[in-house]
């Protein structure tokens, strides 16, 4: 918005009719047309849609790598892919799926849904939100560019030292991996901070802690996990680059360093990461399920407790990835104990969903099919999780395909199934159009069947001793038949995803109009038009119940008194969500984009020279000063 566009100052919405409020808010909160307008926008919905689309592009790329691996392993002694390229492929697959798809897409769903579900007009720190997307996009592109140039990392997604150290991994492949971590972690941390502040300080009046939707609780817990876990991996990747570039010895035992320190740092992040991906899925399921069974979620309090307990316990499991490194058995057993104990809150969640299904009247629409697929698959993955939490069993199957099967059951079953259901569920809100029920059922059927046919036999392969990460195997070994079966089954899985993406593209253009609340859901995001306008809510809703959109209520009570001539939000108290203040929300700005470019320039340069941190900081500082410099707009006022 320019100064010319603004109306007279201090115009409050309570003085105006709805049509007038709508006109003013559209002008105040809207995104300017054109290329630079699109680059400068800080609308959380626009940024979240970009995040989601980018993450799904990375999912497609990672899936194609998985198909390449299955093609290679379909028969013994295959020479289709050479060992070096295979190492790059499985490293890229794991790194891409964890850092460029799973974590960002969950953060993106939070960025889209949380402000709508808590009844506010934008996320907290919206320019930081824009900055985080550009950083994510550049970091992901950097990794894939290195793969295109045959210079991708080849040390696994965990990059254990000493393999990833300067002695065994010369060149810049590992540095690219380590710096890509920095890119994605900066973006994840930015989202986490935004979500925590949005939920604790921008909830609609009346949305006390016991009325927060389960999805929002899940995103808050996920955000705290990100804030706690990401510094560990950022420290690890930075010290790895220091070891490689300036000759520090953090991970060199010969010079007083410690190779195991890497594993501790990596898995202190790596295990909570599983729950960073899983807990948002728990929230999605808990928010979607009531809509399709026609009753509120069973055990709201138990679910919230389970989310918080899981979030904390997830930080005490990391050593179960290190059972074969030779730590004292007693110490390992402490982590076995926590790994078993975390099954308690997970079980509580499952029982709450089953009880909700049992007590309601299920309508088997596509999102509910994905929820049921999730429950079945995740329970199976959880059971093998309890198995590998046991030291003697884990010692036997460590680094075999049993573990590959287990974590795909947990991650795909526990996160991707709910995510696909969530896309079917919230696609109408995001685009204003319904996805196809027929294609959705085909997609679910193919993905569910294809997934189980692909990954269940991997348990057997693992028990037969097939190691992970091998690029081929001898014909005498008893693995050929199952490998061929798995490779053929993976095509069914891929076909399911193809149907899903065709449905997304087709529905985006030609889907049936959705209307504001096509499912008859009860959370606040459905009180907005589909897709929501830039300002989300014409007037800020007032929440009087855990399910604010009850069918018996004709109109949602609203609060008034916000200015319409500047971007203004209502700040509320943490526990009771009582109104405390009116706060301005930053306008669109091009500077987060330039700051992201400057930061990326510094980070990429620092792969080659430590002086990049010094000289590269200058453009970053310039961009940040311009970012925060007062622009003389109403938003600058206190």
């Amino acid at each position, binding site marked *: 918005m320019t100064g010319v566009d603004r109306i007279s100052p201090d115009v409050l919405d309570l003085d105006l009719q709805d049509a007038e409020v709508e006109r003013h808010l559209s002008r105040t909160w809207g995104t300017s047309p054109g290329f630079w307008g699109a680059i400068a926008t800080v609308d959380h919905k626009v940024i979240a849609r970009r995040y989601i689309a980018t993450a799904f592009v990375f999912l497609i790329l990672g899936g194609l790598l998985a198909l390449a691996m299955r093609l290679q392993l379909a028969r013994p002694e295959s020479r289709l892919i050479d060992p070096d390229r295979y190492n790059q492929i499985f490293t890229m697959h794991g790194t891409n799926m964890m850092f460029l798809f799973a974590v960002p897409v969950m953060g993106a769903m939070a960025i889209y849904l949380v402000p709508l579900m808590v009844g506010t007009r934008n996320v907290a720190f919206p320019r930081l939100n824009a900055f985080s997307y550009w950083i994510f996009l550049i970091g992901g592109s950097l990794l894939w560019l290195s793969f295109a140039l045959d210079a991708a990392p080849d040390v696994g997604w965990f990059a254990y030292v000493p393999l990833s150290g300067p002695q065994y991994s010369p060149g810049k492949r590992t540095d690219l991996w380590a710096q890509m971590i920095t890119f994605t972690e900066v973006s994840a941390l930015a989202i986490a901070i935004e979500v925590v502040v949005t939920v604790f300080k921008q909830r609609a009046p009346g949305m*006390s*802690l*016991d009325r927060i939707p389960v999805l929002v609780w899940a995103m808050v817990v996920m955000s705290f996990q990100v804030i706690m876990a990401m510094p560990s991996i950022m420290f690890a990747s930075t010290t790895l680059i220091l070891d490689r570039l300036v000759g520090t010895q953090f991970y060199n035992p010969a010079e007083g360093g410690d190779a195991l320190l890497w594993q501790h740092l990596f898995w202190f992040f790596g295990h909570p990461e599983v729950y960073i991906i899983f807990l948002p899925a728990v929230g999605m399921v808990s928010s979607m399920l009531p809509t399709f069974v026609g009753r509120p979620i069973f055990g709201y*309090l*138990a679910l*919230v*407790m389970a989310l*918080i*307990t899981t979030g*904390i*316990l997830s*930080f*005490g499991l990391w*050593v179960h990835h290190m059972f074969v490194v*030779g*730590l*004292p*058995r*007693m*110490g390992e*057993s*402490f*982590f*076995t*104990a*926590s790994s*078993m*104990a*975390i099954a*308690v*809150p997970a079980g509580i969640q499952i029982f709450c969903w089953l009880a909700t299904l049992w007590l309601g009247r299920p309508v088997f629409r596509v999102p509910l099919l994905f929820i049921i697929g999730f429950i079945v698959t995740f329970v199976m993955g959880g059971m093998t999780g309890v198995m590998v939490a046991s030291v003697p069993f884990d010692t036997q199957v460590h680094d075999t395909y049993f573990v590959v099967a287990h974590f795909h059951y947990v991650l795909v079953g526990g996160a991707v199934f709910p995510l696909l259901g969530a896309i079917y569920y919230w696609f109408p809100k995001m685009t204003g159009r319904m996805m196809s029920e027929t294609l959705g059922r085909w997609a679910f059927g193919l993905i569910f069947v294809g997934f189980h046919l692909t990954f269940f036999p991997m348990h057997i392969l693992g028990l037969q001793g097939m190691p992970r990460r091998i690029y081929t195997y001898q014909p005498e070994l008893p693995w050929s038949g199952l490998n061929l079966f798995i490779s053929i089954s993976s095509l069914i899985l891929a076909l399911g995803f193809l149907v899903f993406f065709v449905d997304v593209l087709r529905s985006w253009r030609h889907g049936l109009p959705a209307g504001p609340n096509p499912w008859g859901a009860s959370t606040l995001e459905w009180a907005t038009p589909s897709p929501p306008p830039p300002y989300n809510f014409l007037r800020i809703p007032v929440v009087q119940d855990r399910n604010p959109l009850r069918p018996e209520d004709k109109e949602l009570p609203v609060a008034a008194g916000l200015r319409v001539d500047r971007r203004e939000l209502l700040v509320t108290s943490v*526990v*009771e969500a009582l109104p405390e203040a009116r706060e301005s929300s930053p306008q669109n700005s091009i500077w987060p984009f330039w700051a992201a470019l400057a930061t990326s320039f510094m980070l990429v340069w620092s792969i080659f020279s430590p002086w990049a941190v010094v000289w590269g900081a200058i453009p970053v500082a310039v961009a940040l000063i311009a970012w925060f410099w007062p622009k003389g707009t109403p938003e600058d006022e206190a």
Partner: protein
Amino acid sequence: MNAKTAKYAGLVLPPCAWALNTQLGQVLPYVDCRGESWLAAAASLACTAVAAAGTVLILLVWQAGRSRTGLFISLIGCLSGAAFAFAILQQAAAAIVISACEH
């Protein structure tokens, strides 16, 4: 200690006790192995007691948390405290059953 403090103490004590015991579990086996002591087991039982005390504390101040959200926070603390006490109890069982010198 007033009711509000007790409620939040009950919320914080069990996870802190669990985190502390998890860390002690990485250090004390070496001490126990050298000195043939039972420090890891003793620490685990002490932390179980702290976690249980946190949970009981919430139960004791239950009536004091009269507001709806106060009751909500109390119940969350009570249930999660029980879960953490269970986790530490399992760690205590490991400390009692498994030799500190075993690698």
